[in-house]
């Protein structure tokens, strides 16, 4: 027994790194909390009862399995391989974020925590956290950059309605990176009753591994579904990459299937200039140790984290998940980019071709899929992860795609709300 426990703790230590990346680079005062968390996680990961409970919630609460949909019209537009869409957009709260939030909330409850704290960029993770907090009777406090609050107000409204407290973050670039800092700092001060429900496969160990595990359900389902439809593995997988939780969730179960090609799509933003995009793996990628983990970050030559931009708040982040960094170095995943304009155009294309409204994050993956589909034959199969739905992007997309009508609507709403 003792031997077994020792072996397990050694395995845990081993798993702290993905190749050269990851680790637990935090001030000493956070170490006990992270040790408690990894101890609990590795315990419950093996527990059948825990997995059963999670499975039940996935099915009856989150709405899993999500469909793997053959997009015939999109396939025609791509003029190449068959394109399937994994519709994470049909999950409760509208994105893959619920997969991780459910897993961690269940864990937090087992650990006896009464409060969840989370960061959010697009608001999808905040929304998922607020939802599971409501579901489990936990308090929730969501840190969100001031810039993101402005551009993702619909999610702010729903988080509040579910009972979450929204804390605006006014430090630094006022976006996702700063929300992570603020949430971590809040956690440091409230370790006893609070669980930090980190939303992406980033941060100090055990987060990158734990979030990847909870999100792997995406890839596992795809594997089973494509077997039914095509009786074989797909040839290509495409996902957008912010911190990287939807991409690693889709890719992970396929890592050993060497013939499956994996594409990660970063935010090319407005172009290659400083602060204009969120490309960690562009020209001269830089490695660093930030927010508790070692990976690729957008840094200047002295190591200061640089501002980022993307039309989609969820991709607007300076760091790349450590496991993805390792898979990049190993040549297992190919990373490329899609600009704001291309993403918007793909957003419209998917709406018109399939009647599916993707999140602007996921629209990056769609745009890239359409770019490369032609490289593959008609018999080959591509799966694109529609990580979230685009309702939350109404305010951004409408302004760009139907400015006149949208402005008229907004004016009427304001006038209606405030009669003279």
């Amino acid at each position, binding site marked *: 027994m003792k031997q077994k426990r020792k072996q397990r703790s050694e395995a845990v230590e081993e798993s702290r790194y993905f190749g050269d990346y990851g680790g637990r680079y935090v001030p000493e005062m956070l170490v006990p909390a992270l040790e408690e968390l990894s101890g609990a996680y590795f315990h419950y990961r093996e527990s059948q009862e825990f997995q059963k409970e999670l499975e039940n919630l996935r099915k009856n609460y989150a709405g899993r399995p999500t469909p793997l949909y053959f997009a015939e019209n999109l396939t025609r537009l791509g003029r190449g391989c068959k394109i399937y869409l994994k519709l994470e957009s049909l999950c409760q709260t509208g994105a893959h974020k619920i997969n991780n939030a459910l897993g961690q909330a269940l864990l937090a409850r087992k650990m006896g925590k009464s409060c969840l704290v989370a960061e959010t960029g697009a608001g999808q993770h905040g929304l998922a956290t607020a939802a599971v907090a409501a579901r489990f009777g936990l308090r929730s406090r969501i840190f969100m950059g001031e810039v993101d609050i402005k551009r993702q107000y619909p999610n702010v409204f729903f988080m509040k309605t579910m009972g979450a407290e929204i804390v605006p973050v006014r430090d*630094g670039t006022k976006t996702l990176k700063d929300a992570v800092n603020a949430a971590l*700092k809040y956690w440091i001060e409230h370790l006893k009753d609070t669980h930090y429900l980190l939303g992406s496969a980033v941060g100090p160990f055990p987060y990158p591994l734990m979030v990847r595990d909870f999100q792997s359900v995406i890839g596992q389902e795809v594997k089973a579904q494509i077997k039914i439809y095509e009786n074989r593995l797909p040839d290509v997988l495409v996902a957008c990459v912010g911190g990287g939780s939807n991409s690693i969730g889709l890719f992970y179960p396929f890592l050993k299937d060497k013939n499956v090609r994996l594409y990660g799509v970063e935010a090319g933003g407005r172009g290659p200039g400083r602060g204009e995009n969120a490309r960690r793996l562009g020209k001269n990628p830089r490695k660093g140790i930030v927010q508790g983990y070692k990976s690729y970050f957008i840094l200047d030559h002295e190591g*200061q984290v640089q501002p980022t931009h993307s039309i989609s708040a969820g991709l607007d982040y300076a760091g790349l998940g450590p496991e993805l960094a390792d898979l990049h170095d190993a040549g297992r995943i190919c990373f490329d980019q899609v600009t704001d304009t291309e993403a918007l155009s793909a957003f419209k294309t998917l709406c018109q071709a399939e009647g599916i409204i993707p999140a602007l994050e996921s629209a990056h993956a769609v745009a890239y899929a359409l770019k490369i589909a032609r490289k593959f034959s008609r018999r080959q199969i591509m799966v694109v992860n529609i990580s979230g739905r685009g309702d939350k992007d109404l305010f951004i997309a409408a302004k760009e795609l139907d400015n006149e009508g949208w402005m008229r609507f907004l004016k009427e709403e304001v006038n209606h709300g405030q009669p003279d």
Partner: protein
Amino acid sequence: MASRIDEVFSKKKKLKIMTHVVAGYPDLETSQNLILAMAEAGADMIEVQIPFSDPLADGPTIMAANHKALQNGLTPKLCLKMIEEIRDEVKIPLLFMTYANLAYTMGLERFVSESAACGVSGLIIPDLPFDERGYDDYYFWLKECNLVGIQVLSAGLSLPRLKKLLKIAEGFIYITLRVGVTGAREGMEKKSADFIDQVKAYAGLPLAAGFGISSVEQIRSLISRVDLAVIGSHLINLFNSGGKENVQEFIKEANQVIEQLS
């Protein structure tokens, strides 16, 4: 050879004082003058922070100072040069405090050796724990360059981890008075008081306490409990409201209280 840090602790004064300066805040020259002013007012040691964009362990006051310094164009190189210029003038030990990414980006060897060359006596890097990759390298270069690596400890540590940390600790042991970020507060958490006693029972090194010290009363309560009081955010607040004279006044006042009880 006894390091400059050891010499500080051999002084008779019952409680020594380490002040904190964010290099480049509000600008490079002023921060340089502030170091001189602190030494003149009777600080026993000064911790100079090299600003970083994402200072994980710092509260609002020091974080704002970091950002302001970076906006002013401060770089680690300018910071090293600023210290080198005044090194001979300042007779007390100086330490660099910064975050792992700046040291890692410069290269650990270069960061440690250039710090040594500009005349600091030790380094504090809170987000480079002893059991992460890179630490061994860092430790090697510290030894090679005759610098002291200060460990920052907080209540809540497991006993086995505490013992491991104490084994590699040098110079003094920096205990945070609260589990949280830096920033001026009142009172001391009981948990932290107990932790100080626990560390004392095992440690063969002087103890320092910081995080949240904002009054002479707090400093008084640390006398004969620890050997060194670290004052950071409070001094920045004092500087912001009344300039370096305000900072000097506080240091003198604290020293008076300590002298009376020594």
